[in-house]
Structures are given as C-alpha cells and as structure tokens.
C-alpha cells in the first residue's frame, strides 16, 4: 500500500514543480496537475478498496518516526479513505471542469489548486490539532489565493469582495482555534486528538473553555447559521467548479474535523452540535426559498445539508454504530449532488434559476439534474434515502420527536425550492444562450451522475448487510422502469408496447400472491394501467421522458401492493410519488400544480415516514402487520400520522388543493393515470391502515369517526366545487375529490358494507373517471380548449366520445341501471347499521349535487349550439377512443353482473367484518335490509325503454333532422351560437345560494402559510447585508450564543 503521506507529498512536490515550469507551458502544467490529482485519488481509492474488501484496521502513520505526542500522526481508515477519495476526486473533476479557466490563469493557479486539495485531505488525515490548524490555514490561503488569481477572469470585483470577507472571518476563526489549541495543550500536554480525548480535556481545569474555542472554530468552518454570510458570497461569485470543491470537499473535510472535535468534547457537546446543526438546517433552507440566483441557492442548500449532517454527528449517542452509515449516506449524497449541480451550473449561461430552462434541450442533462435534486431530497434509491430512513427511525425510537419534526419540515422546504427549480427547468421559456456543452464540462456532470447511481447501489447493499433491507435498485419493477431511460431514443409506440407487455407480464407473474383485496388494486394498477396506456399509442415521435416517469409510477404502485414491511411500503410510496410528479409536470401549464402536488405528496410521505418510525420504536425491521400490535399511547399518534399521509394522496378536504390543477393540466393520457389509478394508492394505504390498526382513540376523539366526517365533508365540497368549474378537466378533478371522499367515508364506516362500497368505488371510479378524462381529453385535443362554454353541439361530430361521456355520467351519478347504482345501494345499506348519522346527512346533500356538474359536463360540451370554429372537428383519435369503448363495455358488464368481482371481495371481507355481508342468491343480491337484482333492473328498464322508443318511432316516423338554428328564441331565429349556447356560469343561482361554501379558505390557508415562509425567509436574509464587518459581528454573536448555551448545559 502506498502511504497516505504521499497524498500530501505528491501534491506538494507537484505544486513545487509547477513553479519551475515555464509560464508558457500551460498545457503541460495542466497535465501535471490532473495527473497529480489522479494519483492522489488513486492512492485514496487503493486504501478504500483495502478497507472495503478486507477487515483491515485503520493505519497510523507517524511522520517523524515516533508516536504522538512527540510527533504528528496521520490516520488512514475507512472513513479517511472515503473522504480523501471524495476530496481528491472532486478536485480532479473540478480541475477538469475548470480547464479553460485554469489554462488561462496559469501554473500558479494550478499549484494553488493542488495545495487546496491537499490541505483538505490533510484535514481529514491528521490526528494532530495543530496540524489541523495548519491545514485549515493552508486551505484558507489557497482558497483566497485562487479567488485572487482567478479575479482577472471575471473581473467584476464581486469575487474579490467575497474572498476578503472570507479572510476576515478566517482571521477570527484562526484566533479562536490557536488559543483553544494552546490551552488544550497546556491542559493535556498533548496536541494529539486522541490524546486529548483520552485525557478527557473537557473535565480538566479550564479544559472546557479550551475545547469550546477549538470546537467553535471548527464549527464556524461549517458555515453555521447565522455566521455564514461570507460563505454564501463565495458560493455566489466563485467559479462553479471551485464552488463544487468548496461545497463537497471543504464541507466534507470540515465535517470530519468537527467529528474529531466531538470525540474530544464527549457526550456533553453533542446536544450543542445538534442544536447548531438543526438551526442551520432549518434556517438555511428557509433562506433559500426566496433565492433566485442559482449558485447562491446552491450555497444555501450546501449549508443546510452540512447542518443536517452535523445533526447526525450530534446524535451519535443514539445513532451509535449507524452514525457512519447515516452521516456517510447524507454526506455523499450532498457532496455528489452538490458538486454535480455546481458543475452543471457551469454549463448554464444565465444566473437566474429560470435560465436553467436551457437544459431542456439536452435530455441527458435534465436527467442529471433530476438525479441530483432527487439525491438531495433523499428520495429512493439514493443513499440519502436510506440514511434518512434510519435517522428518523432511530430518532423516533428514542423519542426525539421535536428534532425529527424539524428535520422533516426543513427537508420539505428544501424539496420545495429544488422541485420548484426543476419546474422552471422543464417549463420556463428557454433562454437565448445555449448550454455550454464543452466535453470536459459535461463529462464532469456525467461522472457525478454515475457516482450518484453507483453510490445508490452501494448504499442499498450496505443497507442490506447492516439492516437486512432489500436493495431498492434490485427491485424488478424499478429496474424495468429505469430501463426505459435507456430505451428513450426508441419510438413511442414501441416503448408503449413494451410498457404494456411489461405490466401485464408482471401481473401474470405475481397474480397468485394477491388476496382478493389486493387483487382489486393489482388489477387496477397493472391491468388498468396497461389499458390506460392504450391511449398513449396516439402520441407520435419519441415522447422523451414520458415512459421512465410513467413506469416509475407504475413500478411504485406494483411494489406498493406487494410490500409487507414498512420500509418496502415507503419505498414504493416515494417511487410512485416521484414518478407521478414527473408525469404531471409534463402538462403544458402544469408547473405550479406539479409543484404543489409534489409538496403535498412529500409532506404526506414525511408524515407516513414519521408514523412508521414511531411505530417501529427503533426495531430494525417492522412489518405492516405488526401495526396492529401497537398499543396506547403510541398507536393513536401513529394512526394519525399515517392517516394524514394517506389522505394527502386521496386529496381529503384541507389537503386537496393540489389535485384540481395537477389532474387538469396533465396530458390527455396522463390525467386518467393520475386520477383513475394513482388516487387508489391513497385508498390502499387507508385500507391497510384501517385493517391493521382499526379504531383509535385520540384524546377522546375516535379517529375513525373523524375520518368519517372528513370523508363526508370532502365529498360535499369536492362535488360543490366541481359544479362551478368552467374547465372540463378541472370539473372532473374536483369530482374525483368528492368521489374519494365517498370512498373514505365508506372505509371509515368500519363495517362490511361500507368497505364493500369503498371497494366498489375504487373499481368504478377507476373505470368511469379514466373514461371521462379520456373523453374530455380527446375533445380538448380536437378543440384546443378545455373551457366548456367554448364548446357545444359536438355530439354529431364526436359521437363516440359522447357515448363514453353519457355512459360515464350515468355511472357516476348512480342512476340505475348502470354500475354506479350498486355503489349507492350498498352505501345506503351500509349506513343503516352505522351510528354516525350527522356526517351521513352531509353525504346526502353531496349526492344530488353530482347531477349538476355531470349534466353540465355533457351538456355544455356535446349538446347545445355548435360553434363555427368547430364545424370541422373530427372524432378523437382512435387510440383515445379505444380504451373508452373498452371501459364502456366493462361498465355495462359490471352493471349486469356486479357479482363478478364483488362476490369474492364480499366473501373476503367476512374475515374482518363477519356480520352484515351480502348474500348472493342467484341474480338477487340481498343485504340485511334490502335487495337488488341488477339483471332484472336492466331487463325491465330495457324493455320499457325499447317499447316506448318503438312507439315514438312509430308515431314520429316522419321526423326529420332540422338545422341548428331551427328554434325560436326571443321571437327571432338566432344566428350566433355564442350568444345562444347557454353555458357560462351555468349554475349561477346555485352560486348565489350556496356559493359561500366554496370560498377558497383552504387555498387561502396554504397560500398564507407559504407566503409566511417566504416572507420569513426574505426578511431574515436581509441581515446578510453584504458587509464583511457585519458578518464578523454575526460570527462573534454566534460564538457568544453557543458559549452561553454550551456553558449552560455543562455540569
């Protein structure tokens, strides 16, 4: 093994040699630099491999041939190897990315670059306090020097000012550090870190002040809030490749230094570290919210991530041996993603977040961007996800709920600005300046992408080894979804066929595993999904990005129903959330709606995570079935968290505002997927929850009862809002909210028939809502508008769409003889045994309201007056019509023989609710209260209808179709369809009577919340005045506050 000393030596020698080179031989100098960095990386990699492949113990390197305290020693262990590899590789790749700049600045800059990387490695390797000080100072001087040398490239003075602010701060820091070191030395007689730890520095006389000074100095290097203005200015102004190093490598080195310090400080200082970390994490994310400058935003995010990792280090008393896994996962996620983003920012010309829209023309770069933000947000399968999962679980196990809550809250804010940014990338107007696709710069980004996925795999394996979890990346559905990334250059129809085949095949492979309950969901998710995908055949071209997103969602859904442990369940949940977010974002105007979707979804997901974590109480493996063993006082909390999480997905009232926009603005074939199929995931979650946990009492409130109320109010408000929509797809979207309310109500009834009704709603809603969304989508595609009042009279031009809509609305409204009636009939039977009568009354009110919006839907689009501009409109494309016709057939079949499906479910439900089931006596379905004979109804209605129809045909046999305007209206023949088509503000009187119920209070609430966060961030950030002196005051203030707290908790 090459001694790690060579990491330092090689860099120093090379830096010296660069000084000897002639100024003109820049190419050579550059090569020397890169080779040196590669060599340093290689040494680290070698060591890393040694520690991974064998159980080697860390190696001590004594510089002067003697052991400490008489000489400085370095240590190379697993962590050191990994971190130096990270630092050196970042140095190498950043060096590559800033090739142009380095070549222009010449050998001096390259030498300084080498010294900077070396110094950072040194911080990681050394075990000597003073040596660490020297390396820190070297890093500072090298950083400042780089800024100074690179000045002539930007030539705007901004970087210079930032560098000077940095120097001011570091003057203070180094003073603290030196004083701290000398007193620590005085107290312990050693400069060795382990020596100080062994002599329990903090217990010695004056030792705790000495430690405090060292600690605060190192912490200040982590850019804690609020002493971090200087760092932000550096991030904003420096070369992005340098910022990458500054964020990834400097951050990693400083964190490890803090880790070493905490070793000395002992357990008393852990809470302080945690406190600083969490304040930084929350504040930096909050302050990032109002940012519009990309690099400054990344700077805030870097600071936030560092804060989070500091929290992890501070929680090592409970994280124990898992600290490394968690901190490592977070650190590597942060480092790789942040470096990648900074490199990426080097490709983008503009500095506004909007300017990143230029990436859109390069799918690979978009993929890179997605990878990075998902990695930062801690979504599966990235290492941060595993780390977050374990962290939250361990925190919950120890009852550190406040910390847990703050972490999740702040992570949500972070996701907020990152995904908002992604929305800009996908949807904002692309700037004139193209992306700089110089190979060396792009290569840097791609290396980060590869590293991201490689680390994901590695962390999956580690999680498997440490906790016995499956590697997410090995899950077959996910792999299938990811494979579409590679298939993306293929034509859309081919990918569509593959996708359908894959989903059907997966169903075929797994269908034996499902009990009847899961079978319903499996059929909807997989077979139903495949059916919906038929509509996607209408798309031409390649449809880049559609299939990976869609299949990611379906993969999540497929994994969801097979999940048995909370971990698997949550993974699937996050996957389907992210996949559907990408799908929704594809809509033309869906940017803000997709954002609110992902925010609500992630917020809900965090609730679920917290719920699972609370439930597990630190157990490494927790199966969903074990939820039923939970007892007071934990159980109601778990129930509450999980229920809110799932209700976010079903868009229960209060959490519903994301749905209308998201579903309405989605693409034609995406709306049925996210409405007809995706919403069922939330119901599945609720079913799982109620099956395992049942009724829970929360401070005297029966939570299931509360759910009953929420379901009823959701149904009412959803329906009520639907009738006032002018946009057809928004109308359907609100209708979905109402329908989900019904289903939730059914589940919350907690009796046999209630569940049967809910499941019937699950099936029916899938069928008719998919059908209606397709029909309306087809019409919108042909007419180019979704505003219903602009349409009218399309029945003759689009007869098939009309038929689908007609069948759809009859089914939705519950009018016999179609299948919706079955749902209503079961509903009435179900509530007869329930004690909850008041919410039921609300539901009664909701019922007839459905007629209003349904009639409006079909009338304003298909009936009434045809507009001139649509006289040549054709029927919707074949592939959009085909699934609709299949749905019509399904609806008719289900209407006649509902027993086909329901019978099995009914029998299955007997084991949970033995009483009150239905009996299936031939054609007649009987409950304890009433009876229902679907076939007879169909025949009777059919016979009466046909008889009367024949009669009318007979008496009106000479009826002839008249022209459109053959009506008399105000004693005139009308001639303008626009004035004659009564459609806009269709239910105006209704608004007069009940409009007060539709006041957007919920929207107001949430927008006030976000405004508040924004304003808080905006006001807080004003104290970063830009004045270096003010920053110094911040630093001193920070030191004093931490001192007061620190000394306050000392015994």
């Amino acid at each position, binding site marked *: 093994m090459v001694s790690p000393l060579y990491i330092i030596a090689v860099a120093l020698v090379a830096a010296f040699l660069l000084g000897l080179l002639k100024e003109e031989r820049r190419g050579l100098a550059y090569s020397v630099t890169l080779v040196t960095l590669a060599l340093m990386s290689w040494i680290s990699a070698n060591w890393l491999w040694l520690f991974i492949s064998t159980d080697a113990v860390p190696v001590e390197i004594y510089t002067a041939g003697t052991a400490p305290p008489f000489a400085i020693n370095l240590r190379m262990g697993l962590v050191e190897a990994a971190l130096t590899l990270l630092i050196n590789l970042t140095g190498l790749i950043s060096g590559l990315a800033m090739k142009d700049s380095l070549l222009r600045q010449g050998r001096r800059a390259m030498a300084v670059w080498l010294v900077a990387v070396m110094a950072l490695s040194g911080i990681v390797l050394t075990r000597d306090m003073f040596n660490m000080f020297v390396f820190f100072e070297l890093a500072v001087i090298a950083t400042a020097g780089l800024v100074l040398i690179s000045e002539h490239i930007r030539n705007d003075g901004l970087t210079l000012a930032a560098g000077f602010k940095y120097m001011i701060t570091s003057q203070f820091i180094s003073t603290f550090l030196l004083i701290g070191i000398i007193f620590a030395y005085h107290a312990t007689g050693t400069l060795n870190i382990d020596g100080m730890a062994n002599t329990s520095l903090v217990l010695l006389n004056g030792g705790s002040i000495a430690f405090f000074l060292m600690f605060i100095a190192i912490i200040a290097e982590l850019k804690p809030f609020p002493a971090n203005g200087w760092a932000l200015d550096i991030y904003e102004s420096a070369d992005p490749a340098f910022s990458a190093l500054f964020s990834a490598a400097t951050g990693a080195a400083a964190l490890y230094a803090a880790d070493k310090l905490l070793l000395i400080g002992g357990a008393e200082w852990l809470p302080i570290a945690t406190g600083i970390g969490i304040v930084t994490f929350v504040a930096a994310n909050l302050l990032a919210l109002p940012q519009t400058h990309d690099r400054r935003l990344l700077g805030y995010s870097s600071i936030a991530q560092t804060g989070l990792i500091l929290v992890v280090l501070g929680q090592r008393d409970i994280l124990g041996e898992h600290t490394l896994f968690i901190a490592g996962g977070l650190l590597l996620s942060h480092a790789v993603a942040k470096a990648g983003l900074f490199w990426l920012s080097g490709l983008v010309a503009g500095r506004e977040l909007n300017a990143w829209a230029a990436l859109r023309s390069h799918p690979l770069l978009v993929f890179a961007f997605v990878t990075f933000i998902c990695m930062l947000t801690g979504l599966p399968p990235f290492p941060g996800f595993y780390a977050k999962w374990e962290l939250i679980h361990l925190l919950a196990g120890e009852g550190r709920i406040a910390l847990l809550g703050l972490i999740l809250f702040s992570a949500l804010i972070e996701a907020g600005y990152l995904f908002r940014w992604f929305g800009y990338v996908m949807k904002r107007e692309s700037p004139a300046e193209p992306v700089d696709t110089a190979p060396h710069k792009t290569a840097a980004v791609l290396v980060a992408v590869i590293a991201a996925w490689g680390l994901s795999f590695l962390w999956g394996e580690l999680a498997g080894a440490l906790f016995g979890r499956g590697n997410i990346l090995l899950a077959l559905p996910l792999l299938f979804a990811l494979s579409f990334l590679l298939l993306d250059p293929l034509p859309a129809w081919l990918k569509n066929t593959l996708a359908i085949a894959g989903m059907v095949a997966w169903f075929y492979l797994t269908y034996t595993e499902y009990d009847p309950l899961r079978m319903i969901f499996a059929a909807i998710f997989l077979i139903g999904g495949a059916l919906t995908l038929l509509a996607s055949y209408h798309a031409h071209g390649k449809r880049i990005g559609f299939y990976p997103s869609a299949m990611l969602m379906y993969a999540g859904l497929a994994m969801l129903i097979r999940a048995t442990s909370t971990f698997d369940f949550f993974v699937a949940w996050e996957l389907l959330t992210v996949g559907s977010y990408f799908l929704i974002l594809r809509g033309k105007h869906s940017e803000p709606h997709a954002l609110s979707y992902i925010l609500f979804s992630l917020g809900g997901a965090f609730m679920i995570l917290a719920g699972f974590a609370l439930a597990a109480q630190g157990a490494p493996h927790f199966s969903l079935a074990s939820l039923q063993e939970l007892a007071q006082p934990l159980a109601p909390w778990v129930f509450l968290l999980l229920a809110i999480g799932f209700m976010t997905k079903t868009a229960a009232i209060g959490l519903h505002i994301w749905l209308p926009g998201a579903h309405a603005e989605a693409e034609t074939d995406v709306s049925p997927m996210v409405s007809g199929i995706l919403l069922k995931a939330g119901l599945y979650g609720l079913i799982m929850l109620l099956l395992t946990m049942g009724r829970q009492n929360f401070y005297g409130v029966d939570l299931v009862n509360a759910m009953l109320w929420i379901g009823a109010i959701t149904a009412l408000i959803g329906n009520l809002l639907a009738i006032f929509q002018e946009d057809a797809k928004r109308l359907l979207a609100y209708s979905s909210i109402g329908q989900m309310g019904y289903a939730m109500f059914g589940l919350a009834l907690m009796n046999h028939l209630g569940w049967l009704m809910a499941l019937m709603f699950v099936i029916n809603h899938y069928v008719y809502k998919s059908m209606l969304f397709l029909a309306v989508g087809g019409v919108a595609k042909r007419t180019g508008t979704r505003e219903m009042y602009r349409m009218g009279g399309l029945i003759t031009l689009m007869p098939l769409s009309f038929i689908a809509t007609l069948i759809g609305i009859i089914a939705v*409204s519950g009018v016999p003889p179609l299948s919706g009636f079955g749902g209503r009939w079961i509903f009435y039977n179900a509530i007869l045994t329930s004690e909850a009568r008041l919410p039921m009354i609300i539901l009664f009110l909701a019922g007839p309201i459905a007629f209003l919006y349904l009639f409006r839907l079909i009338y304003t689009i298909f009936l009434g007056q045809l507009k001139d501009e649509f006289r040549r409109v054709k029927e919707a494309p074949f592939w959009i019509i085909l699934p609709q016709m299949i749905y019509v057939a399904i609806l008719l079949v289900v209407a006649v023989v509902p027993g086909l499906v329901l019978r099995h479910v009914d029998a299955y439900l007997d084991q949970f609710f033995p009483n009150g089931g239905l009996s299936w006596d031939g054609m*007649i379905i009987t409950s304890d209260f009433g009876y229902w004979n679907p076939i007879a*109804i169909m025949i009777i209605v059919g016979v*009466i*209808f046909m008889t009367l129809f024949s009669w009318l045909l007979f*008496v009106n046999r*000479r009826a002839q179709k008249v022209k459109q305007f053959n009506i008399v209206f105000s004693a005139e023949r009308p001639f303008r369809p626009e004035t004659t088509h*009564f459609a806009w503000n269709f239910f105006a*009187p209704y608004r007069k*009577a009940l409009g007060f119920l539709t006041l957007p209070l919920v929207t107001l609430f949430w927008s006030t919340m976000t405004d508040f966060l924004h304003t808080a961030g905006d006001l807080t950030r004003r104290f970063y005045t830009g004045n270096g002196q003010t920053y110094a005051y911040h630093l001193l203030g920070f030191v004093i506050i931490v001192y007061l707290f620190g000394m306050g908790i000392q015994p």
Partner: protein
Amino acid sequence: MTFDWMKIPYALLTLFIVFNFGLLLTAFIAKIGARAGRRHGIPIWQNYIDLIKNYGQRSSITHGVMFYLGPVFRLTGGVGLLLFVPTIYGSEMFSNLSFAGDLILALYFVFFGTLGMALGAGESGHPHAAIGITRGLAQVTAAELPLALAVFAVALQYQTLSVTEIVAAQQGGMMNWTMFTNPLAVAAAMLAFLGSMMRPPFDVVLAPQEIPIGPPTEYHSAYLALMQTNRAIFPIAKIVIYMNLFFGGATSWPEFAVKVFLIYLFSAFVGVCFPRFRVEQSIRWFLIWAVPLGVLSILWV
C-alpha cells in the same frame, strides 16, 4: 329463480289504471286550482284531448338523437318508477315488478327520467331549455335532501329498505302510520314533496307563462305527448312512494285513490296560496325549513 310471466299483464294493468287516474286527477287538481283563482278552469277530460291532439300532430322534426330519446327516457323513468314499487299492499297482482329492487332503486330511478329529459332538452339548442334544466337540477339537489333524510329515517325506524315491509309495518290502524310514529320525517318529506311537484312556489323550472320556457321548450307533437303521458304517471308514482312510506300504503284501489288525491291536493293547496320562488330562494328555503326537520327525524329515530 323462475320469472312469473303473469306479472307482465298485471303490471300493464296497474299502468293502465294509474295512467287514467293520473290524467283525470291532474285535470281535477288543475280545476281546483283555477276555482281557487276564481277562474272556470279546464274540463276534466282536457288531458285526453291534449294527448290525442299531440299524438296526432303531423309536423314532426328532430334536433338530434338525444332530442329524440329525451322523452323516451322521461317516460321510461315514470313507468319504471311506478312499476318498481308495489301499488296495492297485500296484492300479488299489483305488487308490480318490485322484486327487482327496493326503496333505494325507486329513489334513484327518479333521476333516470330527469337526466334523460335534461339531455334531450339540451340537444334542442334552445337556451331556455338549458336555463330550465339548470334551475331544475339546482332546485332538486336541495329539495331531494329532506326526502332522502326522511326516507332514511323511515328505513332506520323499520330496519328495512323493502317497501313492502315498510308498508306491512304500518298496518293495523292509522296510529301505526309513519305519519304518527315519525311525524318529523313525514313533515320533512312533505316539504320535499312540494319541491318535486313542479307547482308553485317551486315551479320556476317550467315557469308556465305566455312564452313557454323550461326543458320542454322545443318539444311538440308526439314528443310532447310522451312527456304529457309521463306527467300523468310520474306524480302518481311518486305519491305512491309517499303513501307507502308515510301513510300506511293502500290495500285497495279506492283507498289508493283517496290517499293519492289527498297527498296531491296538499301540493295544489300550497301552490295556490304562495307565489313563486326564485331558485336560490327555494334552495335556501329547503335548507332552512325542511332539512333541519329531516335531520331531527334521523336523530330522533
């Protein structure tokens, strides 16, 4: 299960009786209304004349398929509603086709005709038709609510959804009628009844005046005749449900005639006494006056 084919002629017989009874009754009620207004009113056979005239009219045009089907839907709704509910209690002959479903079927089947009619009128392209429909639909959401509550209270009271069983439970004297055992529910339902009879003060949907507006605006000849047929059958069918649920049902045709007439008269009585509501007024009225009664009735059971 084997189907008893004799049910078909029996059902047709019920239909025939109710049809004629309906024609006469509506004319009679109209005459009462006219007399209350010091007018002479129509002759008792007026409905027959109108029907024959309309069926015989030659000018028949159509605005499209749904326009054509609208009246068919409408009448199917009326006939179906009648036949899904037993007319005469204890009579196998006049239990009609109630084997197909219970009370819930009847309640939801009411909308079958409404929806079809709305669609048909919609295709006529006449804005008055559309306006009438929005008014009708808007009003019905509020008007049906007390009925639904009352029905549910009754179902809870008797623990069944079968109409026959509900009637059976009310036998044995007037005091067993729901009207006396559950007066709140009946009060709520009767207020809802006013809303569904298309009479003042809730007749803004049709808004009879010199220029006809409302859903039937464009309908004429046989279409209109079909709808007029429905106008004779549908109210009776609805009243049959009320009668069965709240007023002990009928064990014979004379009892049937009296009870139906009295229930009908109630709406006519209110109609001649009160002026017309606008839609938002009637919605508020139902929510303020009728719905609380329904809620109380449910909580009271």
